[in-house]
């Protein structure tokens, strides 16, 4: 598929999403959807440097915040009357997005030039340092609000779309489509092959004629620019921007966690990760307390790292390695144990948190399947399935008891039963 075709299909899907969201006619959907889309852009941007090229960037929040503060700066500075004839009017958000991209792209280039001689953990620490330096700078720059923060009053409505938040949602949708198209284009081009060569072995890449420094600078610039684009509309979305919210650790952590969970070698990975994790975070924050939200998201990250070390994509592609690890008794017991805990919390929330609960049941069923297959006792899988089915049916507390019992039996059988081959092997002298 050509890049243009892909872009058109993405745009069509984007228009479909927007139309569907309009049908629901609930502004909250746009508020929540904006965040998910923003994470698609951030995760995709991170992945261009982190996934394709193999350089882990912990400073995503800095690039995001740069885009956001560029907007704040221009919002404060404009309209600017240079003379009675020349007046610079406030800029529309699409222009601000381009400006945010240029600024963050330049900072990405500069950061790359300073830090790309470092590798592995050292590079990651340097990017973290960049974020701290920039945050300190912004905190002490009173024109953009300093530590107090800055208000950006947005209009309530905009022609012809209607509510302003829908306009912001639409912009972010366009950015997500752009980011995905860029990522996919890079992946299939000569550039992507060069990035992958750098990720696999930088020395061998250089010996094969790959101009590694130049390519790494291209990667940091594109990645930084996309993050800046994601940040530019943010002040209009949130209305009040302060350094601690623009430089929040959430952005850095999520833009790493999402591609990791989805899979880092393809543009689909960050998309899956961002949609999954972003949506879950939104659901959990609204339906449950935001502290349980953190517990659940943390647990899912732990699950993903162990069950799908190469991301969900890797799991789908059928690498059997993860399954073998999960089937190990100790790992099985640990994962089984910690994945039962959130089900208890979610149960108390009953109906509202059902989608989250289903995910944890799915994890339990997968674990039972992996362990059951290894020890040749596939019937183990029926126990979590029965428990899940029982928990869906509202009714007397007896069902809860039965499902707990079934889970305990599943865990015990999974641990006590040994693989048949191993038993015969130990039997022979």
């Amino acid at each position, binding site marked *: 598929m050509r890049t243009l075709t892909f872009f058109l299909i993405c745009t069509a899907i984007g228009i479909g999403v927007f139309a569907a969201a309009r049908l629901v006619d609930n502004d909250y959907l746009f508020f929540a959807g904006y965040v998910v889309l923003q994470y698609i852009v951030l995760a995709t941007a991170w992945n261009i440097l982190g996934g394709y090229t193999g350089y882990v960037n912990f400073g995503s929040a800095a690039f995001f915040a740069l885009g956001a503060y560029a907007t704040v700066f221009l919002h404060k500075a404009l309209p600017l009357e240079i003379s009675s004839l020349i007046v610079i009017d406030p800029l529309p958000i699409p222009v601000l997005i381009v400006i945010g991209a240029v600024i963050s792209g330049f900072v990405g280039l500069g950061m790359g030039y300073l830090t790309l001689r470092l590798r592995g953990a050292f590079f990651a620490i340097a990017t973290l340092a960049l974020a701290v330096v920039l945050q300190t700078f912004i905190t002490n720059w009173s024109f953009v609000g300093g530590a107090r923060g800055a208000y950006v009053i947005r209009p309530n409505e905009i022609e012809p779309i209607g509510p302003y938040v829908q306009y912001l949602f639409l912009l972010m949708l366009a950015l997500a489509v752009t980011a995905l198209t860029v990522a996919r284009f890079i992946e299939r081009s000569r550039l992507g*092959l060069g990035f992958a060569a750098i990720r*696999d*072995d930088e020395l*061998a890449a*250089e*010996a094969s004629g*790959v*101009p590694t420094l130049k390519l790494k600078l291209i990667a940091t610039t594109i990645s930084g620019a996309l993050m800046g684009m994601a940040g530019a509309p943010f002040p209009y979305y949130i209305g009040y921007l302060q350094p601690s919210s623009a430089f929040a650790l959430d952005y850095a952590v999520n833009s790493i966690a999402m591609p990791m969970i989805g899979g880092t070698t393809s543009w689909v990975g960050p998309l899956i990760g961002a949609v999954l994790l972003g949506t879950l975070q939104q659901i959990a924050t609204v339906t449950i307390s935001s502290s349980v939200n953190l517990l659940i998201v943390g647990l899912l990250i732990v699950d993903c790292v162990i069950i799908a070390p190469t991301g969900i994509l890797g799991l789908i592609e059928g690498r059997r390695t993860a399954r073998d690890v999960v089937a190990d008794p100790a790992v099985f017991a640990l994962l089984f144990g910690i994945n039962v805990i959130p089900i208890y919390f979610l149960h108390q929330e009953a109906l509202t948190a059902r989608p989250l609960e289903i995910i944890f049941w799915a994890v339990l069923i997968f674990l039972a399947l992996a362990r059951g297959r290894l020890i040749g006792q596939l019937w183990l899988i029926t126990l979590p399935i029965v428990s899940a089915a029982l928990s869906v049916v509202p009714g007397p507390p007896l069902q809860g008891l039965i499902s707990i019992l079934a889970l305990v039996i599943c865990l015990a059988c999974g641990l006590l039963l040994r693989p048949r081959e191993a038993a015969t092997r130990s039997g022979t002298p």
Partner: protein
Amino acid sequence: MTALLEVDNLSKRFGGFVALDGITLSVKAGERLGLIGPNGSGKSTLVNCICGTLANEMGTVRFDGATMNGLTAHERTRRGLARSFQLPRPFTSMSIAENLRVPLLYTVNARPGSHLSPAAIDERAAELLSLVGLADKAKHLPRDLTQVEMRKLELARALAAEPKLLIADESMAGLSNTEVADIVALLIRLNERGITIILIEHIMRAVMSFSQRLVVLVTGKKIADGAPDIVIRNPEVERAYIGQ
């Protein structure tokens, strides 16, 4: 014949340790040169300095009539100076064929006046793989290869850059006798196609059957340079290898 590679008074230090001490070496176009020396004598460092992986403090490297000092490794590769690594360093996430696409796209296509179409690149990769005997593994990942296949991939990737000079850094260590003979035969075939080759090797049988000329490094100094059968009878070389 004119010299393709001229190394003049090359020195390299790591802190206080002198790894290379005034190496002067000249390789003619089309020559097969063997480079030997005990462990730690500076063979790999010399390769790294010639190829631009390491920067040398003193001396010059001239290749194909141009000074290489200050050029990065990829620029040197593009000018026709390719190497294989002592320990195979394949691109692990790519298939064997894709491994060869990297130098084809970034070296051959980066040279002025040369532009291979995607189809031509695939064809060239297939040609190279059948040359080294990996044609049936084109779609496999490097982790599916055996040691000897990995070394062949390493050579194929260096060859994909269409080098004038190929430096094979211990491409036979740890291989069996037949495998060694296999690779020596391959290298001689390549040489007959007009590629100058420097072979760095510990396996004397391979070096002796391959080399037209032999250079011996000991503790960063060149102690002998000449016809193989004369060089190995050199008392200094014997002392370095066997002791007094």
